[in-house]
């Protein structure tokens, strides 16, 4: 299969859906002429024009609120939020309007709105441009949350979001945009929400990696293999809905689990997964549920400080090895 980058995969999904469905359009800060600060929408303006690739003011509440209104009226907007940190500028629109419109209206509002968000730490970007805010919105019923870790998932999950009926927060990790991988060319290729991927099979310990950390968990698994530990790596792919069954099945097999996230440890996505496993898989576990994540301080600027706060491959390896203290 041909290989393309994560950013190209997202662009392909956008272009293919825009060709297929006139109700799809893209709007956000610098998505048109600039091509998006992450380069995702580069080159699209020539084909789709400024009406369907709309540059907006720096105005997150209006971008998401207008996306909601357009979605309610039958459009399928894909809006881009440049940094996940900026989602809070539109906090009311996301948590009180977008998420609840269908429910509050007794099912009258259909909200096929995709909110693409660049997430995670790109390096020395400090506390307001580096966060992983996925779990802030896991506590808000009504939105779905995708955390694609591969180019193929980025394309397949984005298409699922764009063809769906519900609002989706689509978290694209900044450090994944340039990563390459095989991506199907089928213009109907979809990765359904709620289906975790087993990235590597193993028998001794389950590593659950969220977003970027799915990749780091794979690297950790390779290191662990050299030490004679067989790690199974699971990528949940979507946090809402969460494929509990696949996670529980893996833990039942390995009896040990490490959950890795780039978000701050306290009340991050891993906290929810840990609670779920405690409720539904405790009888399979031979040790504590171990979480790996960013330390509970704002993300710092200096690489020395940032490296200390963010979770690393080595942190995952060490967490897994802690199950065998004498090894």
């Amino acid at each position, binding site marked *: 299969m041909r290989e393309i980058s994560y950013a190209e995969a997202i662009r392909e999904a956008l272009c293919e859906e825009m060709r297929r469905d006139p109700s799809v359009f893209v709007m956000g800060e610098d998505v048109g002429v600039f091509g998006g600060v992450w380069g995702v929408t580069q080159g699209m303006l020539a084909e789709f024009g400024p009406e369907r690739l709309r540059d907006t003011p720096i105005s997150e509440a209006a971008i998401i609120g*207008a996306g909601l209104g357009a979605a309610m009226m039958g459009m399928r907007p894909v809006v881009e939020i440049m940094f996940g940190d900026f989602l809070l500028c539109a906090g009311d629109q996301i948590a009180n309007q977008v998420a609840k419109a269908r429910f509050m209206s*007794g099912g009258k509002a259909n909200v096929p709105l995709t909110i693409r968000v660049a997430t995670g730490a790109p390096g020395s970007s400090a506390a307001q441009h580096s966060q992983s805010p996925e779990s802030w919105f896991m506590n808000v019923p009504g939105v779905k949350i995708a955390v694609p870790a591969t180019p193929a998932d980025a394309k397949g999950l984005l298409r699922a979001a764009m063809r769906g009926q519900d609002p989706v927060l689509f978290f694209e990790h900044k450090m994944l945009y340039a990563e390459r991988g095989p991506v199907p060319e089928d213009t109907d290729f979809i990765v359904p929400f709620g289906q975790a991927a087993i990235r590597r099979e193993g028998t001794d310990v389950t590593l659950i990696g969220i977003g970027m950390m799915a990749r780091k968990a794979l690297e950790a698994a390779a290191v662990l293999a050299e030490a004679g530990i067989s790690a199974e790596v699971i990528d949940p792919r979507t946090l809402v809905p969460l494929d509990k069954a696949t996670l529980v099945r893996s833990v039942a097999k390995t009896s040990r689990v490490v959950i890795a996230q780039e978000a701050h440890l306290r009340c991050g996505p891993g906290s929810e997964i840990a609670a779920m496993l405690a409720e539904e898989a405790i009888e399979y576990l031979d040790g504590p549920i171990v979480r790996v994540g960013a330390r509970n301080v704002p993300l710092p600027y200096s690489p020395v400080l940032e490296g200390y706060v963010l979770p690393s491959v080595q942190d995952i390896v060490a967490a897994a090895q802690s199950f065998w203290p004498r090894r």
Partner: protein
Amino acid sequence: MVETDSGSEKPVPGALNSYPREFLATLFRRMTLIRQFELRAIEERRGGLIPGFIHSCVGQEATATGACLALEPGDVITSTHRGHGHLIGKGGDVRYMMAELAGRSAGYCRGRGGSLHMADFDLGILGANGIVAGGIPIAVGAGLAFAMRGEKRIALAFFGDGAVNEGAFHEAANLAGLWKLPVVFFCENNLYGEGTPQSRQAPVADLAVRAAGYGFPGVVVDGNDALAVYDVTREAVQRARGGGGPTFVEAKTYRLRGHYEGDPQVYRSPAEIEAWRARDPIPAFRRRLVEGGLFEEGALAEIEQQVARELDEAVAFAVQAPLPAPAEALEGVYGDTCGGLVF
């Protein structure tokens, strides 16, 4: 950019002739329905049928009705926490409204929304809103959809004087002005943002001046004069429909009851309320219709009785409607639950 509609204070009786009789009857009927609906809802809340709080729009019937009657059926509105009048103005069914307030499955939102979230997409009512200014960006998005598809529909956002100090208003107004979207920003200025007067919330007397910063006109109108509201809104609607972009309509009015039922109203005097009661829009319009010779007293009384009967039926409908099964609360959060996984 602010124009004051000075002619609306002292109506010229002859001017009534320029409106179709049927239109005037509808205007009177809807204002009456709003007033009676609110009073009936308050009564039923006291009686225990309605569990939640009510922000009544008693005194503001002329803004809701005048603005909504300036719209075409395909046009849409977003509403506010004080939204019952907007729904009725746009043709909402009081049976489903009362049932919703009573928390019944037969209500507009199947008992999930209550007063603050009633919606009827078939009538172009995209929802009341519990967040001040929350619905304005949504109206702008609806306008964007219409503009992109080349449809001659418009969106009207109702909001109060408190909303113009919220960021959502400013962001939405900027976007609509920038893109010349078919949106009417309709500000019902009832002089109080909850318990604080406008003078202590904004440094300007006319909120319509805010529109100038976003490149579209702002107009001030007497919000207790339904026909003046209708005329000004009609112009704004035509401008929007014709591609001329948004207009900010500031309709100055007054809520004759508290911010919510039970509000002790320590922030204003009984004398002030009484002074505004003398300008109550419904009796004023009623007098105008009779004195203008267009309607017999009896014809209007009959409308009032019809409305009362309609509300008796609405209450009976709500009382008889079954309560939802508790587990219905789990339905309708998502359009696609991914096989139940999202819960």
